[in-house]
């Protein structure tokens, strides 16, 4: 990544397309501070394109904070400060001049509690594209249908697109939020405990959805449900707090390895429920 690439890229300061082999997202020696409190300590890892990576660990170990590094949602907290390298497609996203809005279009996020806007289902999905300048009704119709289809929600809501986004069930609302993210055509989808507010059947539907989406998108999911991480992900990162209550990366590896033969005893203890 050199100055020429920066100059030749679009105005967002981000490369126009992914030219970096392998790593879609990368952390190197990253520390996250809230004021003087270090929440995340010295984390380095690589996330490959079109994979599902799960981040697990006990509560309060910095999983969500770490996830929010990738789309700079930590910026919303005034005291937050990041040290180290956070790369998306090989570009440091914290360097000055990066268009955060464009970044968040390409790195979308789904939250723990489904948060559809208080508008119709159609308007919810069309919200992002409309704000990005698409006005043509037919184009929007196509985008809405495609996104809802990708989110496995189209058949269930195609006859009630003008009903409020809040009128459907929790599991459907979460899929609506996923459709809303898909409508802006991101490359990465970050999911912060997307199923923790849902019932088991809704959870399984979303897990199936994730596997389908992984062929097109890179997915990073924070979950406190280990079985979910084992079911769904290709790679798993295990975080834990150290004595200073800073979250550190204990182990990061192929999911099947982590859950059958972890290298670190702390990982083994956590996974087998010997501590938690």
């Amino acid at each position, binding site marked *: 990544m050199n100055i020429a690439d920066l100059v030749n890229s679009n105005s967002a300061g981000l490369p126009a397309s992914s030219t970096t082999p392998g790593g879609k997202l990368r952390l190197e020696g990253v520390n996250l501070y809230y004021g003087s409190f270090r929440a995340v300590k010295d984390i380095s890892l690589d996330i490959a394109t079109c994979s599902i990576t799960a981040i697990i660990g006990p509560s309060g170990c910095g999983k969500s904070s770490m996830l929010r590094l990738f*789309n700079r*949602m930590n910026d*919303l907290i*005034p005291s937050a400060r990041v040290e180290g390298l956070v790369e998306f497609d090989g570009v440091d996203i914290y360097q000055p001049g990066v268009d955060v*809005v*464009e*970044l*968040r*279009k*390409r790195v*979308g*996020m*789904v*939250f723990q*509690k489904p*948060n*559809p*806007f*208080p508008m119709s289902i159609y308007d919810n999905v069309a*919200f*992002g594209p409309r*704000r*990005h300048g698409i006005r043509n009704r037919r184009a929007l119709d196509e985008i809405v249908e495609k996104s809802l289809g990708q989110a496995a929600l189209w058949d269930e809501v195609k006859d009630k697109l003008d009903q*409020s986004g809040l009128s459907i069930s929790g599991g459907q609302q979460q899929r609506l*939020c996923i459709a*809303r*993210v898909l*409508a*802006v055509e*991101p490359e990465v989808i970050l999911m912060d405990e997307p199923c923790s507010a849902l019932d088991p059947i809704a959870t399984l539907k979303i897990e199936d959805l994730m596997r389908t989406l992984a062929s097109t998108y890179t997915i990073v999911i924070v979950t406190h449900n280990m079985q979910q991480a084992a079911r769904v992900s290709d790679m798993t990162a295990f975080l834990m707090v150290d004595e200073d209550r800073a979250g550190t990366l204990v182990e990061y590896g192929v999911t099947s390895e982590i859950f059958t033969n972890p290298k670190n005893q702390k990982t083994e203890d956590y996974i087998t429920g010997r501590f938690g």
Partner: protein
Amino acid sequence: MAGSNIKSRYLTQKTAMVLLVTATLLVVVPIILIIIYMIANGYSALSWDFLTQPPAQAGKAGGILPAIIGTIYLMLGTIIFALPVGVTAGIYLSEYARNNWVTRLVNMAIINLAGVPSIVFGLFGLGVFVMTLNLGMSLIAASLTLAAQALAMTITTSREAITAVPKEYREGSLAIGVSRWQTIRYVVLPQASPGILTGAILAMSRAAGETAPIIVVGAAFLVGGLPGSPFDRFMALPYHLYTVSAHIPGMPADIKWGVALVLIAMVLFFNILVTLVRFKSRKR
């Protein structure tokens, strides 16, 4: 023992209930009595002519149309000036301002502004709008003055309504690459608008009843016709009421009550409007 416990608990519940109901009645009953008294005394003055004719014989006959129109113009003028400033300030204070001493100072100033007596606003208006800006004693000067007074309320209600919008909506919007301003414009403001509207209507309703400031700044008792431009003098219901109550000898009693009734009716109308807006927004 169990038996006496139950009995004493029951007694306590009953006593509390009685006290609370009495307190409520103490509040509600006087208002109802006042309204009934006003209707009883002023009903006879009300007529179509009363509402649509200008006053005659120094207000002892004829109608109060100019005062009604003047009051309506005042309310509109107040809100035209107070609402945009109030909403913008509310947006800034809840979305952009950092939590430092400057912001705290600003918020404290707003609280204090709300407590300033209305006559002081009147003098402020006289000095700044009438004289310094050379607008003269006029409708526009009065509107600006009342707007200045209404600012405290519009800023506060806007700020509260915007802060009340759950942060999940903002996060959901920002997280799909929508800019800060677009989020405010398309997600936060629509969601906050019932609250903002409520504040605006309340401000208007309060402006309808202000007497002291408008006396100082431009209200007149008898003006030739309806105000033709914002720079004209104007009539207003509160001032009209004040004058006919205290300064015109031989004023028929029912006219005084009639004017009061019209004024109260207007204020009541707007308060009911506020309640309806609140009710509708809670339904969705």
